[in-house]
C-alpha cells in the first residue's frame, strides 16, 4: 500500500530545495555523461535532457517511492528524479554487469523497480498504453499507487497516444500523462507535424482534464503536477500535462542542432531553467549560495564515485546471453 504523503499544493522552501537538488543532479549527470561519452570511455546513444530538467523533479518530488514511472529514451531526468541510484545507472550506461539491467538494456531501457522505474522504452509513444496497464493493476489492487508517464511533443501524433488516452479516461485510471513539449521531434518543428495549437487541446478528445504549463517554472510545474497527482490518487482519473520546454543539446549525441535557427536557440537558452531556478531560490530566501554550492559539491562527489564504479565494474559474462530471455535459462 502506497504511503499517502501529503504534499502541499504550492511548494514551500523544503519542496523547492528538494526539487532543485534533483534538477541539479540531472543537469550535472547529463553533463558528465556527455563528457564521458566524448572521451570515448563509454559508447552509447544518449538523449540529453539539458534544458528540460525542471519537469520531472517537480512531478517526482510529489510521488511515493512505489509510484510507477514509465519513460522514454530521453528519460535520464525521470530516472534520477524518481531515485534510480547513480551507480546502477552509470554502470548500465557503461554496459556493465552491475548496471540496473545487467548491461542488457542500456540507457534506453533503464529499469529499477525499487525506485518505481519499471519501463523505459525506445519506441515513441509506446509507454502510454503500458502506463495504463500499471495503473489498472493499482486500481484493481487498491494499492494507492499512481503511474506517471513521460513522452515528447512528437509522441502526441502517434496512434498509441490516442488509444492510450482514450482508454485511461474511460477506465478512470490513476495516470498522469506528462508531455514534455520541447517543440522539436528530432529535427522537425512542432508546427510542421502537429495539427493543433496546444497538445493540451487534445485532452478534449478524451474528456480528460489537460493543461499547458511552463515546464521551466518549478512553481507552476509543481502546482500542475499536484493537481494531477491528487486527482489520480483520489480516483478522479487521468490528467494530461503539457510542459513547455526546450532541449539545448541536440536530439542525441552527435547532433549539433544545426536545424534550429540560432535566434530560436538563443531565446530558449535565455530561459535556461537551471540558473532561473537558482535565482528563484536565492531571491526568495529559500537557500544561500553556500547551500546551493554544497548541493553541487555533493553531486560532484557522487558522480565521481559512480563513474569510477561503473568503469571499474566487470563486463557481463557471455553466459548472460542465455539468461532473462525467459524465466528459465535457455541455450540462446
Amino acid at each position, binding site marked *: 500500500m502506497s504511503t499517502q504523503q501529503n504534499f502541499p499544493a504550492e511548494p514551500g522552501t523544503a519542496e523547492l530545495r528538494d526539487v532543485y537538488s534533483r534538477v541539479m543532479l540531472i543537469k550535472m549527470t547529463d553533463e558528465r555523461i556527455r563528457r564521458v561519452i566524448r572521451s570515448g570511455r563509454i559508447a552509447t546513444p544518449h538523449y540529453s535532457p539539458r534544458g528540460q530538467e525542471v519537469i520531472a523533479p517537480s512531478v517526482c518530488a510529489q510521488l511515493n517511492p512505489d509510484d*510507477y514511472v*514509465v519513460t522514454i529514451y530521453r528519460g535520464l531526468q525521470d530516472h534520477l528524479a524518481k531515485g534510480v541510484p547513480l551507480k546502477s545507472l552509470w554502470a548500465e550506461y557503461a554496459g556493465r554487469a552491475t*548496471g*540496473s*539491467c*545487467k*548491461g*542488457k*538494456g*542500456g540507457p534506453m*531501457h533503464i*529499469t*529499477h*523497480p525499487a525506485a518505481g522505474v*519499471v*519501463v523505459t*522504452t525506445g*519506441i515513441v509513444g*509506446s509507454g*502510454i*498504453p*503500458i*502506463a*495504463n*496497464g*500499471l*495503473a*489498472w*493493476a*493499482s*486500481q*484493481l*489492487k487498491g494499492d494507492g499507487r499512481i*503511474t506517471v508517464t513521460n513522452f515528447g511533443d512528437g509522441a502526441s501524433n502517434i*496512434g*498509441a497516444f490516442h*488509444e*492510450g488516452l*482514450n*482508454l485511461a479516461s*474511460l*477506465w478512470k485510471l490513476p495516470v498522469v500523462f506528462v508531455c514534455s513539449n520541447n517543440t522539436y521531434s528530432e529535427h522537425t518543428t512542432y508546427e510542421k507535424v502537429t495539427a493543433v495549437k496546444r497538445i493540451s487541446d487534445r485532452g478534449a478528445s478524451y474528456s480528460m482534464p489537460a493543461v499547458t504549463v511552463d515546464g521551466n517554472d518549478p512553481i507552476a510545474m509543481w502546482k500542475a503536477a499536484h493537481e494531477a497527482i491528487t486527482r489520480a490518487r483520489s480516483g478522479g482519473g487521468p490528467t494530461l500535462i503539457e510542459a513547455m520546454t526546450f532541449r539545448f543539446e541536440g536530439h542525441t549525441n552527435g547532433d549539433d542542432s544545426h536545424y534550429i535557427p540560432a535566434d530560436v536557440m538563443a531565446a530558449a537558452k535565455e530561459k535556461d531553467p537551471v540558473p532561473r531556478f537558482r535565482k528563484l531560490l536565492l531571491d526568495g530566501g529559500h537557500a544561500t549560495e553556500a547551500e546551493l554550492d554544497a548541493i553541487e559539491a555533493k553531486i560532484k562527489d557522487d558522480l565521481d564515485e559512480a563513474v569510477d564504479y561503473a568503469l571499474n565494474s566487470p563486463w557481463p559474462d557471455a553466459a548472460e546471453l542465455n*539468461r*532473462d*530471455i*525467459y*524465466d528459465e535459462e*535457455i541455450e*540462446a
Partner: protein
Amino acid sequence: MSAEAETKPAQIIGVQAINMALMEAMEADPTVLVFGEDVADPEGGGVLKCTDGLSTRFGDHRVRSTPISEQAIMGAAVGAAIAGMRPVAEIMLMNFISVAMDQLVNHAAKIRYMSGGATSVPLVVRTLTGAGMSLGGQHSDMLEAWLAHTPGLKVVIPSNPADYKGLLLSCIEDDNPCVFIENSTLMYTPGDAPPPGYKVPLGKASTPRVGSDVTLVSYGRPVLDCIAVADKLAAEGISVEVVDLRTIVPMDEAAIFASVGKTGRVVIVHEAVKRFGVGAEIAARINEECHGQLKAPVGRIGAKYSPVPFSSALEKDYIWTAAGIEAAVRKVMG
C-alpha cells in the same frame, strides 16, 4: 444408455474448453484478468462466447470489454503483467496483431531481457485465425512464424478441445508472455472433454498415432487430417506416426528427433504459408540432427505463397489437403 456411451467421455468444443480454462484460472487466481473487444457479458461474452459468464461471475473490474484499440489492449496487458497481474488479452483475430506488433514484440517479448530480469511480463494473448471459411485475405492468416522468430515469446497452437483447455491453463500460469492461437474451425469441432484440473505442459508434443514407417510432424488444425491419413494408410500396412507439436516455442525437438530417428522419413504439415514458415526451421533442424538417419528428403506441406483467397474454389487448394498429405507420405515412402 448403452455401455459404450457411458464410457465415452463427454464431448466439448474449443469454445467450451477456452471458457472452462478461463473460469478455472480466474477462480484460482485473483490476479487473472480477461479483456478485449466484446468479452464482457453485456457485450454477449465474446463474439464466439469464449468469455461468456466471466464478467458476471468475476466482476467487470476483472473482465472488461475494450475499445477497438489493439495497441491499448496489448499495452495494458504488458503494464498489468509487470505490476504482477496475469492478464489474458484477446486480440479478436490474428491479423489484428499487426496493429499491436510493437507492444508484442518490442515490449512484451523483450522487457524481461532488456531489464536484466528486473521485470517480467506474464501475459497471455489469445487470438483466433485460420483459413477455410471464406474470410479472405485479412482475416485468416497464420502468423506464428513471426512470433516464433521473436525470442521471448512462447507460442501455442492446440489441435483439440482437451489441449485447448490444458494448454491455456499452462499459458496463464507461465511467467513468460504466451501467444495462444485458436483456430476458427477447431473452435467448433467436438472432442473429448478433459477431467477437471487438466493441464498440458508447454513444450511437450503429443503422439496421437504411433507408427514406424513415416513421421508426420504437425500442429493445429492439420493434425486432424494427419490422423485421418495415418488411419487410412494403416489399413494398407503403412505405419504412420503423428507428432502433434502443440507448442511452437518452446518446441519439443526431442520428440521430433526421436520419431524421425525411428522412422527415417518425415513430412511436416502446417497451415501457414510454407515458404519461410515454421516448417522450414523444423526441416532444417531435422536435417542437422538426423543427417545420417533420413531415408528420404524431408517433406514439407504448407500454404501456397499468396494471400488467402476468398473464393472457396481457390481457398481449398491454397492450404494443405488430406490428399496432399497422403501423397507426400507415399512420396517419402519411395
